[in-house]
C-alpha cells in the first residue's frame, strides 16, 4: 500500500467535508454544554442532540464521501490517480472513521453524563489514585465509542460493499432499531445478563473483555469490507 497517497485521499475527504464536520462538532459541543449545565429539560435535549449528531454524521459520511463518489462521477477521477483499489478502500475507511470519530467522541462525552451516578462525587468518594480514575474513564469512553463504532462499521460496510443508497439506509435503519430497542431497552432487563452488566458497570473483567470484543468485531468488519472490495471489478 502507498501510505502517502492514502493519507492524501483521507485529507481530501476531510477537506471536502470540512463544513458539515464543523457543524456536527458545534452541535455535539452544544449538546455537551446543555447536558452539563442544564436542568432536566436541557439535559434531555442535550442527550437527544448527541444522538442526532451520531445519526446525522453517520448518514452524511455514507451519502457524501462513500456513496457520493460514484454518483457524482468523481470515483473515476480518484481511481485514475496512482492508487490501487485497496489503497482507495483503506483511504475511504480511514476517512469515514475519522469524520465519524471527531464529533462522535464529543457526543460520547455527552452520553457519559447520561449516567445516573454523580461521576465527580463518586470519584472523590472512592479514594483511589488519579490514574485509576483515568483508566476507568477511558475504559468507559472506549466502551461507548466502541459500541457506536461497531454499528457505524456495519453501516459503512453496507455502503462500501453495496454502493446503494437504499441498502445503506435500510441497514442504518435496522441498526438504529436494534440499538434503540434491543441494546438500550431489552438487554438490560434480561435476568441472565444482569451479573454481566453489573460487572461491566464496576469495571471488572467484563469491561476489558467487552472492549476487546468490540475491537475484534470492528477489525472483522473492516477485514470483510477489504476482502469484498478486492473482488470488485468496476471502479467507475
Amino acid at each position, binding site marked *: 500500500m502507498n501510505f502517502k497517497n492514502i493519507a492524501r485521499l483521507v485529507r481530501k475527504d476531510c477537506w471536502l467535508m470540512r463544513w458539515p464536520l464543523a457543524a456536527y462538532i458545534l452541535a455535539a459541543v452544544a449538546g455537551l454544554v446543555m447536558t452539563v449545565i442544564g436542568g432536566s429539560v436541557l439535559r434531555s435535549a442535550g442527550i437527544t442532540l448527541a444522538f442526532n449528531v451520531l445519526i446525522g454524521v453517520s448518514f452524511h459520511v455514507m451519502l457524501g464521501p462513500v456513496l457520493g463518489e460514484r454518483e457524482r462521477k468523481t470515483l473515476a477521477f480518484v481511481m485514475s*490517480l*496512482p492508487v490501487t483499489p485497496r489503497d482507495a478502500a483503506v483511504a475511504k475507511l480511514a476517512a469515514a472513521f475519522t469524520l465519524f470519530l471527531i464529533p462522535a467522541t464529543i457526543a460520547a462525552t455527552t452520553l457519559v453524563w447520561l449516567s445516573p451516578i454523580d461521576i465527580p462525587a463518586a470519584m472523590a468518594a472512592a479514594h483511589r489514585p488519579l490514574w485509576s480514575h483515568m483508566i476507568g474513564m477511558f475504559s468507559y469512553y472506549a466502551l461507548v465509542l466502541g459500541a457506536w463504532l461497531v454499528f457505524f462499521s456495519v453501516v459503512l460496510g453496507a455502503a462500501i460493499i453495496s454502493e446503494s443508497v437504499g441498502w445503506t439506509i435500510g441497514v442504518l435503519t435496522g441498526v438504529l432499531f436494534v440499538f434503540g430497542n434491543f441494546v438500550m431497552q431489552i438487554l438490560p432487563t434480561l435476568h441472565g445478563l444482569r451479573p454481566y452488566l453489573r460487572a461491566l458497570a464496576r469495571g471488572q473483567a467484563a469491561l476489558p473483555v467487552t472492549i476487546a470484543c468490540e475491537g475484534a468485531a470492528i477489525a472483522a468488519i473492516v477485514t470483510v469490507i477489504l476482502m469484498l472490495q478486492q473482488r470488485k471489478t468496476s471502479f467507475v
Partner: protein
Amino acid sequence: MSDCAVQLCGISKTYSHFALGGIDLEVPCGSVLGLIGRNGAGKSTLLRILMGLVRADAGRVSVLGRDMPADERWIKASVGFVSEDMALYGAATLGWHMRLVRDMYVGWDQTRALDLLDRFHLDPDQPVRGLSRGQQVKALLLLAMARHADVLVPDEPTAGLDPLVRHEILTLLAASRSERRAPIFSSHYGDDVATLADNVAFMRDGRLIAHLPVGELLGGGRSLEKVFLEKVSAIECRRAA
C-alpha cells in the same frame, strides 16, 4: 522501455447486457490509434480496462511493458486518462485539484500547468461546479498534461462540445500527438480520428471489426465515418444472409 505503448491480448468482459470479446490490440510507441464505434460499442469499456477502472474477465493488459493490475500504480502514474464519464469535485476549485494532483505525481510541472491555465482561459480559483462542460474537459486535460503523462488516453474528449472548444481541444491533442503521448483515444467523430490518428480501429457490439492505417482508408474522398458505416452494413448483410 517496451516498444509497445499499449498491448491488449484476448481482452473480454461480460455484463448482463453487453459483452466485450476477444480484443487484441497493439499500439507501438510513436503511433496513435483512434477508436470509432457507435454508442455502446465498447470503446469506453476498453479504455477503462486499459486504465484499470474496470477489470477484464480474461486477457492481458500491458502499458509501456508493465502489466495491469500487477503494476497498477506505476501504470496510473504514467497514463493521463480523460473521460466524459469523469468529474472533478464540484465544491472545490481547479487550483485545489491541481494541488491534489501535484502532490501525487513526481512529474508535475507547475510552469506548464500555469501555461495551460492561460491557454485554456481557466480560473484556478473558480469552483469546478461553475465550469461549463468544455471547461471541465479542459481542466481534466490540464491535470493530465501538466504532469507530463507518458501516455494520454482521452475517451471521447470532444463529445458534446461546441465546435470552437472542440477545435481547441483537438489542437491541444494534436500537439500531444507530435510528442507521441496520446497513443489511443476514442471518438464518435471520424474527422477527429483522421486528424490525430495513424491507425483506426472500428468497434461494433463489443468486437473489433477492423484495424487499419488511416491513410489506406481515406482515398477517393471517403471519410472514416463512411468507411465505418460500410463495414458495419457489410457485417449486417452477412448476418442477414
